[in-house]
């Protein structure tokens, strides 16, 4: 029908961030064994404890199997065909400021629309940019330092604050947690580290931009955020990757620790290369994100997932402390042959804990989009509450949407609510907006953004605008 023809046209829009940066980079040969892990650890000049930690993870990983319970078709991954270390080859001394950064690299960021210098001045956003595996520039660090806030690359934190790493690394996502988390623990390259001291409210949004550039490299970043008692922080990550015909693996781990009374807001705008129209290439985004809340703490995940060939991701909250709060706001958009199986886990352990889940799935093309969520109420979690709302929006009739809610309650006082809807963009809605002079692309984008409003409004202002544009771009060509 007319609508489908239109929808298919918007889908045909090409990926905008598909350029490759010509940079000399230092990689190791493909393959994975203990020597590779030692090489990575040595390259990064890591302390012994971390090497041991990696090796332990690796040995456990060898005993594990790739998970197959998700509603995903994943071609077998040859882990020996991946290079586990790639760094832009720069002068021996890593750049100390933006002036020392390879101009080619900075141009890459500009193409991505994140001119670091401008962001520094205009947005008041401190950006820790991770390019392949090495963090190239950390802005605003000094300003944050004044308040005792640590915001740096993970590698730097390993050297400057080994005690914090030792104390918290792997406490939320242990090395044995799951296949991809174990792999990450063994070979992780870099990532971001944040520590907010007691009672400090971080004065600006902290932001990291990830980008996978080199061919055949997996990116395994590791992020650890610790919000000490009664502190507050808002963190945003954005991701893009160039177009390549091969699939690339991205297996990240993010751990959040919200100590007593602390609050962490973690927002993601994920726009990895989704593969072409026929499903060739694209990022495998297999990510483990989890936070732990102590008494009266709050962790809020907001994600807008528009990229990747396959997304396997369940940002979760362990509500260990009494009166703690977990939130998950998600938009997952799939187009063409993209697949997403994403959702959250809210694990209620403390008393009077509450969680909110708002998940919006948009499927177009021949894509598959699944929400998978677990709400678990432990036996001591008196008066726990959860509210879950899952809405699916279908564009055309060749895509699919699924909802897999799991609820386990061991405490009778728990209150759990679940709502779910599935709808379509109707011809009537499109015609109405077009009759008001609005182009078909803008009409679709408007309807989709309206559908996602509950989630988008949780993003920090400047990124909400970006996310809205992204939703429009990702659907361009799918109607017309």
């Amino acid at each position, binding site marked *: 029908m*007319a*609508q489908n023809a239109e929808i298919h046209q918007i889908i045909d829009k090409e990926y905008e961030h598909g350029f490759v940066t010509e940079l000399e980079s230092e990689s190791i040969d493909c393959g994975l064994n203990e020597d590779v892990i030692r090489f990575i650890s040595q390259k990064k000049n890591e302390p012994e404890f971390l090497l041991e930690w990696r090796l332990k993870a690796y040995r456990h990983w060898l005993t594990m199997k790739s998970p197959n319970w998700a509603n995903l078709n994943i071609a077998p991954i040859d882990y020996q065909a991946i290079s586990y270390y790639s760094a832009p080859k720069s002068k021996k001394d890593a750049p100390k400021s933006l002036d020392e950064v390879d101009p080619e690299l900075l141009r890459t960021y500009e193409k991505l629309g994140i001119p670091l210098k401008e962001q520094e001045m205009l947005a008041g956003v401190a950006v820790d940019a991770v390019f392949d595996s090495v963090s190239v520039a950390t802005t605003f660090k000094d300003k944050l330092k004044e308040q005792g806030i640590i915001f740096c690359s993970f590698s730097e934190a390993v050297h400057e604050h080994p005690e914090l790493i030792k104390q918290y690394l792997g406490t939320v996502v242990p090395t044995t947690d799951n296949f991809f988390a174990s792999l990450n623990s063994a070979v992780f390259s870099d990532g971001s580290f944040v520590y907010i001291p007691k009672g400090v409210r971080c004065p600006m949004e902290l932001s990291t931009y990830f980008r996978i550039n080199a061919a055949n490299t997996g990116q395994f970043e590791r992020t650890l955020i610790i919000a000490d008692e009664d502190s507050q922080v808002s963190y945003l990550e954005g991701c893009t990757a160039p177009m390549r015909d091969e699939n690339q693996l991205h297996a990240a781990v993010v751990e959040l620790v919200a100590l007593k009374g602390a609050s962490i807001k973690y927002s993601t705008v994920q726009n990895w290369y989704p593969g072409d129209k026929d499903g060739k290439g694209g990022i495998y985004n297999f990510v483990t994100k989890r936070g732990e809340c102590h008494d009266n703490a709050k962790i809020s995940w907001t994600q807008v997932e528009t990229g990747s060939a396959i997304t396997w991701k369940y940002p979760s909250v362990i509500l260990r402390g009494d009166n703690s709060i977990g939130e998950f706001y998600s938009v997952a958009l799939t187009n063409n042959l993209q697949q997403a199986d994403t959702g959250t886990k809210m694990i209620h352990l403390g008393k009077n804990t509450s969680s909110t889940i708002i998940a919006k799935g948009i499927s177009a093309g021949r894509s598959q989009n699944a929400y998978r969520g677990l709400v678990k109420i432990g036996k001591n979690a008196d008066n726990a509450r959860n509210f879950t709302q899952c809405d699916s929006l279908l564009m055309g009739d060749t895509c699919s949407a699924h909802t897999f809610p799991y609820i386990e309650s061991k405490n009778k006082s728990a209150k759990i609510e679940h709502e779910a809807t599935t709808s379509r963009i*109707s*011809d*009537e*809605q499109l*015609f*109405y*907006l*077009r*009759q*008001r*002079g*609005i*182009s*078909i692309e*803008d009409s679709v984008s*408007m*309807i989709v*953004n*309206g*559908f*996602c*409003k*509950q989630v988008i409004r949780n993003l920090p202002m400047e990124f909400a605008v970006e996310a809205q544009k992204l939703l429009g771009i990702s659907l361009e060509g799918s109607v017309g």
Partner: protein
Amino acid sequence: MLKIENLQVNVGDKNILQGIDLEVKAGEVHAIMGPNGSGKSTLSNVIAGKDGYDITQGKMTFLNQDLTTLEPEDRARKGLFLSFQYPVEIPGVSNIYLLKAALNAKRAEDGLDEIDAFDFLQLVKSKMAELKMDEDFLYRDINSGFSGGEKKRNEILQMSLLEPKLAILDETDSGLDIDALKIVAEGINRLRSADKGIILVTHYQRLLDYVQPDFVHVLAKGKIQKSGDKSLALTLEKSGYAGIND
């Protein structure tokens, strides 16, 4: 401004419009009346460019341009406005957002810059005052949870903001109580001017008490059966549609 000659339209394999001739000149108000299923809404939709209608014969021009080659949004930007019989709900999108986007789309067509946010708010508030609409209307989702009357009033608000060259009002009077009808009619009359055309598609005479048409056409069985001045509407009111088929 609008010229339709021998327009024939199929939906599926059903022949809904069987040769319509209609000319609307600037400054004129035409009323198209007819029983249910006569093709009134089809005619409105076809003029505005909705998908799903198959034009098998005939010509349709607006400001001397062939309408059939234009997308609905292009027709709108050139000044063609359709007030919907059943305005659709669009959750999560605020009225003000749509109003501004629609106005700016038209301004772009006219070679104008986007309207200043402050000027826009002034303008839209003055239009709302004319229609006796509350300001909180602006921040509600498009037509979501609106009563029938609110939806129609919202259509008229959009129309008065966009100031179209040709407005087609499809059953705008249905679902309105008498007070709302008067307000809506005033809105339509304000648009009325020497350079604009208006088509009122309606079932009943009562709107025509407030907006006096220059011409009345009776549409039945896919054809205009009879045309005349406003007295024709009164005749219809008395004798019903059954009497006009001779």
